[in-house]
């Protein structure tokens, strides 16, 4: 078990290092000057622009040798300093992101957990009920092929604009302030539901398909035939098949995280939900590279941590990792 987790930790540290280096290198090695973009946004006269250029270059430490810039970048990360924001002048990048992260997590965590549970259940059921298989499977394929932002658009158009069942955008009513009151909670939930539903539906399809295929595959395995020959009840056989099929699904969960995070970004944009996605589009539209850099960093850390949590859970589900036996 220690060996298994140690290998994973090494992998994640290496990934973290590569990701941070990419995050650092892209603005510096790519053609184009981020400072120039910033100054053209401020629209000053040419002499002032030159002075500003020098000022920003110095204050961001871009006049130092590359290796020193690289070390400074790491030092900044360690202290949680991701630089100032250009889109929101006066705020620091880390401040902005910390304010947005809770909203994104409030969408992502329930959507991932519930779609995983529901998708696996429905997929396992579909593997043995012909009628469910022929109805749920095509729907699942369509759901997993749907672009997140489009499903979000359709839901908000039909349920909010046409039927008026849900609010159109934002995370809570504009007349309210975040507080621990029933009124705020109700407003929050009604704003939260549609973006959550979007994320839930698209990822649900993938899990259902995966589980259905894995169960069918497991039921064809030798141990299933052997149990059947011994006269074991089919419920027991399916229970074993489910237990085995959960393992690849968990590996899949770690891999699907990146996809669903991307989905959350575009879903938030459609709903004007004040999470990391809305921050991303603001950063892109304002050419706020420091903010983008910070968002990238947060996404990487989040995905790596989530991967690690899945790995720990995997240890509890798969006894082979505990005893150090290599799976076939």
């Amino acid at each position, binding site marked *: 078990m220690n060996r298994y987790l140690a290998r994973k930790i090494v992998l994640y540290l*290496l990934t973290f290092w590569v990701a941070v280096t990419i995050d650092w290198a892209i603005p510096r090695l*790519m053609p*184009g000057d981020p400072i120039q973009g910033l100054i053209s946004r401020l629209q000053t006269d040419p002499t002032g622009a030159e002075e500003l250029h020098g000022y920003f270059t110095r204050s961001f430490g871009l006049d130092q040798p590359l290796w020193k810039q690289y070390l400074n970048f790491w030092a900044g990360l360690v202290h949680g300093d991701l630089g100032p924001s250009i889109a929101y002048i006066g705020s620091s990048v880390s401040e902005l992101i910390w304010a947005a992260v809770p909203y994104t997590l409030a969408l992502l965590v329930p959507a991932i957990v519930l779609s995983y549970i529901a998708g696996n259940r429905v997929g396992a059921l579909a593997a043995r009920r012909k009628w469910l298989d022929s109805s749920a499977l095509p729907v699942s394929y369509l759901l997993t092929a749907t672009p997140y932002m*489009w499903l979000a658009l359709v839901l908000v*158009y039909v349920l909010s604009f046409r039927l008026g069942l849900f609010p159109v955008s934002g995370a809570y009513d504009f007349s309210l302030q975040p507080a621990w009151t029933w009124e705020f909670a109700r407003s929050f939930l009604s704003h939260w539901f549609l973006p959550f539903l979007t994320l839930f539906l698209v990822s649900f399809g993938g899990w259902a*398909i995966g589980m259905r295929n*894995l169960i069918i595959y497991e039921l064809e395995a030798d141990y299933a035939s052997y149990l059947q020959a011994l006269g074991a009840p089919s419920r027991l056989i399916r229970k074993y098949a489910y237990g085995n099929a959960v393992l690849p699904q968990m590996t899949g969960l770690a891999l699907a*995280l990146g996809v669903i995070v991307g989905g959350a970004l575009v879903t938030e*944009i459609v709903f004007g939900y004040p999470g990391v996605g809305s921050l991303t589009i603001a950063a892109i539209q304002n050419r706020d590279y420091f903010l983008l850099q910070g*968002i990238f960093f947060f996404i990487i850390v989040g995905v790596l941590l989530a991967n690690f949590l899945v790995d720990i859970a995997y240890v509890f589900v798969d006894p082979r990792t505990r005893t150090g036996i290599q799976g076939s």
Partner: protein
Amino acid sequence: MTTLEQSTELAAADAAEHVLPPRRRRNETLYFAFRNRKLVVGLSVVLFFLVLAVVGPWLTSASPFEFGYPLGESPSTAHWLGTTAPGQDVFSQFVHGLRASFLVGAVSACVASVIAMAVGFTAGYRGGAVDEALTMVTNVVLVIPTIAVLIIVAAYLHVGSLLWEAVLIGATSWPWAARSIRAQTFSLAAREFVSLARLSGRRGRQIVIHEIAPNMSSYLFLVFILLFGGSILIAATLDFLGLGPSQVMSLGLMLNIAVSASALQLGMWWWFIPPGLAITAIVGGLYVTNVGLDEVFNPRLRDR
């Protein structure tokens, strides 16, 4: 998406065991292909949109960025899919967008397949330290979320052409494919016919090309289809974020413009429904085709 990929991997493990004489195999494959409802339905949907993408631009005199048509009109005989709020023809944007989707999907699936095959074959056939190193690289790229890398790269590069966008997507979406090709190569490399080829003195590269690759060609084809569908979705996300080429009309860019021009508030459903519907249909069609082909190639999956 990732779960789809895994089940394809499992199924293909069996497929390699059923090697028939070439001619009989081809006739039989065709026979089962036309009988397979999933394959027929999925392929028809994809082909329908492909044909529309090819001939569509000739069916309309409007060009996608051209203004001067009625403002925000619903579908009519003059404008099959209506017009946008500032007065552009939606049908023209739609068919050009379809072209863009197919182009990006095909090119980036090619790029990703080439990288995945290079990495997968080398790692699986060589083994040892080469395998360790390549597997490590693959796992690192696999864990970094593709979309996050693409956002930051595209924001700096100002992607100006579809080809560029496709290459970027292809260069980041290969790891899962490389991993499963490696696993397949690994098991094939232990077979007798590969040992025989090695004994006859053939070089590693030739063995991979002439012995290993042909025996997993059906699997490679399935991988290509999944990469194709996945790339279309990623491209749509990038275009929707405004990070794709802004001079070329794409389905994602249509959605981006529709949202920023308040098509929702104006109730102009004909503006934002077709692009997403087409993406869903094409990608869903590709996935269903993939399952159908899987059943055709692998007898054990048939008749369910």
